[in-house]
């Protein structure tokens, strides 16, 4: 067996180690699905209970920002996928640049998100005592949607922030030559995480921004 500095003592070989990491990561993502699932479930219940109120809120959502953010995240998923590929074939320089690109796109997403939150704050669409809604007859039910909007996008944004932290770690590790074509598991795993966060947004975007937009 070739000496493998990254093989932990309790594994027999690198294959077993990678298989464990991949399986572990996917189980973690299954956990994440259920974590977001509780909010998707609440969303489903209230949307079917108050379809008009929910439709009316979509007029106060910044669809341009949402769509732009969708595009940004899809781009970052591409760069992340390419980063994993670069790691796979041992292209250190490409790996670092693709990770930096992913990181930048992640920050752009958070910036746009922050701008949207600020908009909501100015418009008194943050649930709580100062909440105010233009269409009074929907005020109470619209507040529930905005509650879910902030809960869902907020938890998503926290995941993004964690992702940004992880990317920075990866960039540092990559620049210290920690990865090789033989061992790049962290890039692979954090890639999975990043794509997952992208998928959550792929569902949040139509649910929160587009539903009932024609009405």
């Amino acid at each position, binding site marked *: 067996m070739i000496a493998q500095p990254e093989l932990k003592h309790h594994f027999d070989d690198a294959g077993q180690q990678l298989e464990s990491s991949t399986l*572990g990561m996917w189980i*973690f993502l*299954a956990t994440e699905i*259920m*974590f977001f699932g*509780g909010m998707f479930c609440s969303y489903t219940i209230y949307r079917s209970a108050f379809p008009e109120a929910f439709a009316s809120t979509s007029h106060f959502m910044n669809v341009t920002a949402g769509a732009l953010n969708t595009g940004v995240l899809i781009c970052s998923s591409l760069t992340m996928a390419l980063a994993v590929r670069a790691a796979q074939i041992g292209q250190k320089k490409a790996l670092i640049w693709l990770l930096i690109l992913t990181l930048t796109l992640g920050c752009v997403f958070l910036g746009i998100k922050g701008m949207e939150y600020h908009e909501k704050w100015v418009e008194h669409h943050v649930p709580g005592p100062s909440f105010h809604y233009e269409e009074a007859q929907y005020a109470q039910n619209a507040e*529930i949607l905005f509650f879910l909007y902030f809960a869902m996008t907020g938890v998503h944004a926290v995941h993004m922030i964690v992702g940004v932290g992880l990317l920075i770690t990866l960039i540092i590790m990559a620049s210290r030559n920690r990865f090789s074509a033989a061992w790049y598991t962290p890039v692979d795993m954090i890639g999975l995480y990043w794509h997952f966060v992208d998928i959550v947004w792929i569902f949040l975007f139509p649910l929160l921004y587009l539903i009932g937009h024609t009405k």
Partner: protein
Amino acid sequence: MSTTLLAVQKNYLNADYGWKSWLFTTDHKRIALLYLFSITAFFFVGGAFAVGMRLNLLSPNGLFGHDTYNKLFTMHGIIMVFFFLVPSIPATLGNFLIPIMIGARDLAFPRINLLSWYIYIGGGILALSAIVRGGVDTGWTFYAPFSSTYSNTHVILAALGVFIAGFSSILTGLNFIVTIHTMRCPGMTWFRLPLFVWGHYATAIIQVLGTPVLAITIFLLGLERLLRAGIFDPSLGGDPVLFQHLFWFYSHPAVYIMILPGMAVINELIACFSRKAIFGYSFVAFSSVAIAVLGFLVWGHHLFVAGQSMYASMVFSFISFLVAVPSAIKVFNWTATMYQGSISYDTPMLYAFGFIGLFTIGGLTGLFLATMAIDVHVTDTYFVIAHFHYVMVGGMVMAYLGGIHFWFPKITGRLYPEAWAKFAALIIFVGFNLTFFPQFILGYLGMPRRYATYADEFHTLNVMSTAGASILGIGYLIPMIYLTWAWRHGPISPQNPWHAKGLEWEQAPTPPPTFNFIEPPVVTEPAYNYAEES
């Protein structure tokens, strides 16, 4: 290998000394001990609250007043459920034994294993600080809108504690699943696994898929309380029944997180002390998985009187009966395992007998609660309390104590005093039944749960229950004392004091070295090969 030789051998306990070697260890066995000590501490904290409750109920007018009592049962529930029952067997015995049983050197993610203990302690400290700062009075179920709007106790702090502890449970489950999938030693096929491992695998599935839903539910509840806006309080336009759906989506399967590891332990005890292979191995193995999966489809039986649609209730009731079948299969198979066995009455086996008896009663009374018309009458009464204490305390805690005694020599390298242990097992059994059996009657008579004061006609049965609780309390203290003593002063254990089968007894030294085995183990025979067939 002779015992004298083993005594001087390096093992996981004497490999290293000093507090750092414990607090920064990644050895699953040391982490299991960290869990063992912290869980025992929480057990006695939760137990102290139970003592307070039973004292209060000595008089129909209550001794401590309403607010105090409400806090007592809430803290008892939160501590016992989230900080004792859920982690108990998996995090201690499971953590210690699963890698050894499958012939691995450690869990797949040792650092995550340590992290999960720190998370558990973090959650525990928050929950305890909620107690110190005055307590919580929502009941462990945190029902909205009471918890989100009306209670003015430290709900957020306690909820945050539970939220955080949940991640510890998720990480433990994740670690187990991966370990069991990828770390089995050569020859250890799925159907050669000890049933202990199967039980923990099923448990881990629930931990991984159920716990995040609890976390998000509590998160939404906390947000509603903080913002005074939200989704569960009807005065804010929300639906409180939705909270119950989301809460029980985790908390019913959580009941199986608590009992499946207990069942897992019982398999090992019955097989060893009957010297028989478990009757119907594959049925017992798959019944664990069946319980884990079906257990996710029955939560609505907590909502029969809560305003849930009658048709949904009907479906949930039906599946609740269905989930009783795999539990029944287990009990029947354990009984059949004893047939033509060679049965000894060592302490762990006494606990196994206790488990079968009490779990049978707990399980059968579960059928009463699945029957909708009966549930309407007895839900939220002492019938429910008695039922789940028969399962949780009569089942789970009996199995836990049985397991602790069985593997005590393995963990410590020493033997416990058998006579004291038998005596304690008897006291616990008697005390338990005296405490909880009267509560079935109280429940059918109509005494609601969470009552600080009660009608006079319930007095006699409550006094009986409190009397039983004092016996039970002493019963739990005795093992605490002699096991602590035996840890230092007990006679040195031989390699395999029970002549048990399994890698942990046959191939790993007692106590095991840091990497569990001296030679990498290879498995060539099925589990429980007591008859030594080839």
